[in-house]
């Protein structure tokens, strides 16, 4: 009786296990671009954040978090500096969401980011960076990083073109954003730490998925 009972229960149990796995798969979920991404919680001291940003507070992952601005960072301060360098603001980007915790619990922050140029013409690529920190403070603080902000990056190509619009190249965008900061005189290090969000360099539809999984850091003076 017992053997028959267990054998008969196998398929529904397998279905139950598959359900849990699929939920985990949702978390390692579909990106907005239709591929699986590896969601991880990155933590330092009591602070945590998820290594991707999202559409609509978590319905789909968007782009990898691949830059840390630290020491004396604050969202508006960083954006202002990039705008002084010719980058454009919220008028040029859609809103995405980052998930963070400063030790008191998780919270969402939304951002449109900074971008240059605003709407790239044919055969031109824009670098787009979004910055995340709790909305009440626009920066986090811990003893290792001081005042810090996390950022995702990607490129948009041919947006003003009637054809050929493409998005992606997060690694290239990361390098561009960091090099821009270096041009301000800010100290920075490329590919400083593993944020566990690598992407194979492949095309998927009109997206080119590219990220080495190692985030860069920018020390804000």
């Amino acid at each position, binding site marked *: 009786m017992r053997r028959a009972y267990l054998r*008969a*229960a196998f398929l529904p149990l397998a279905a139950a296990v598959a359900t849990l796995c699929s*939920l985990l798969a949702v978390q390692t979920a579909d990106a907005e671009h239709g591929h699986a991404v590896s969601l991880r919680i990155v933590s330092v001291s009591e602070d945590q954040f998820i290594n991707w940003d999202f559409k609509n507070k978590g319905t789909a992952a968007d782009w990898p978090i691949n830059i840390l601005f630290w*020491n004396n960072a604050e969202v508006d301060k960083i954006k202002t500096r990039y705008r002084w360098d010719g980058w454009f603001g919220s008028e040029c980007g859609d809103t995405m969401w980052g998930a963070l915790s*400063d030790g008191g*619990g998780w919270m969402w922050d939304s951002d449109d980011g900074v971008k240059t140029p605003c709407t790239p013409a044919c055969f031109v690529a824009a670098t787009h960076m979004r910055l995340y920190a709790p909305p009440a403070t626009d920066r986090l603080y811990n003893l290792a990083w001081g*005042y810090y902000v996390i950022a995702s990056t990607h490129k948009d190509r041919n947006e003003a073109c009637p054809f050929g619009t493409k998005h992606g190249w997060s690694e290239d965008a990361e390098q561009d954003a960091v090099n821009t900061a270096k041009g301000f005189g800010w100290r920075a290090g490329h590919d400083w730490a593993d944020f566990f969000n690598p992407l194979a360099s492949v095309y998927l539809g009109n997206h080119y998925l590219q990220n080495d999984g190692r985030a860069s850091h920018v020390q804000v003076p």
Partner: protein
Amino acid sequence: MSVAIVAAISLNCGDDSRPCTASERCEWSVASAPVPALTGQLLANGAEVARIAFPEGARQGAGQWYRIDLELEVDVQRDLAGKLPAGTVPAYLSLAVDGATVFQLKLSPVSATGSSCSSRSNSGLEWSTYGLVYGAQRGPVPCDDPFSVRFANYLQARSVHAGEVPVTLKFEGPDPRLVGSVVLRPGSKVVVSEEGPPRVEVRLGHASVTTDGGTTRARVDFSVTVDGKPVGGAKVDVSRITDSQGVGPATAAAWNGEGYEAGLAWDGSPEATLLVSAAVARGSTLAMVEVGAADGGPAGPAKAALLAEGIVMMLFALMIALWIGRRVACGRLAIRAEKSGNRRH
């Protein structure tokens, strides 16, 4: 080029208004080494206001917690504040120990349409700070008087090491004339204590939300724990995240003997995200909770919600599986019994 306004090194706090506690040792204090009032222009490239000599073996953490307490008085140039154009870029005052920033004050316009001191009460600017001890603080910049800021934070680990390190104060913004003077008051000091930042947590107890003619009223209550133990006497403020992702005005939660309760009202949707800031003597926390007309409770991020749902669904699926399995097994046994019975017959 930075300006050096170096104060003498002193190990005595010497400030009667805010003396060190028995568990604190003073490393530097303005009471013993006064710093003159500084203007925004003087601070535009950074000014060294003191040097601290940390002892041999000094390091942040593990029983040695270096904390800075600041009491500042900031005077904003009122005529300049009155002439700030719309969309004014924010300005910042920051203080660093050995180049590691530990204090950051932001001056920003309250209104996107600019600010004016013609009202002689509120300049339309607000100040805000954030640190591990008091959490997020903000306040209006008055037209007529300087404003005072009381701040505390734990030093970045890299700034605490044996030897002499500079303390620098800096202004960043489009026009340093905005800040007429910054005064570091005698209560400002760097202390080291065996007590580090505690773990402060906020839990939503109950939320009731009602709507009446387009106005939503919410009554929420919280508990605050420090290292797992409930405490009274915390400063708990509740704000609503606005539709444009800003932070609305804060409402102070009152201690009712068992927990903290606050009432908020706003126009619009009954579903809202509330920001709770709780600060105790040595630490603080920020938490977000979501409330709605269905008397919602705390909602974690997608990951936590998915995990919780996953566990419930897993258990439910397991129960279904076992129920189906039992019925199938029993059914097969019944068939087997019938067959056996038939054979017998």
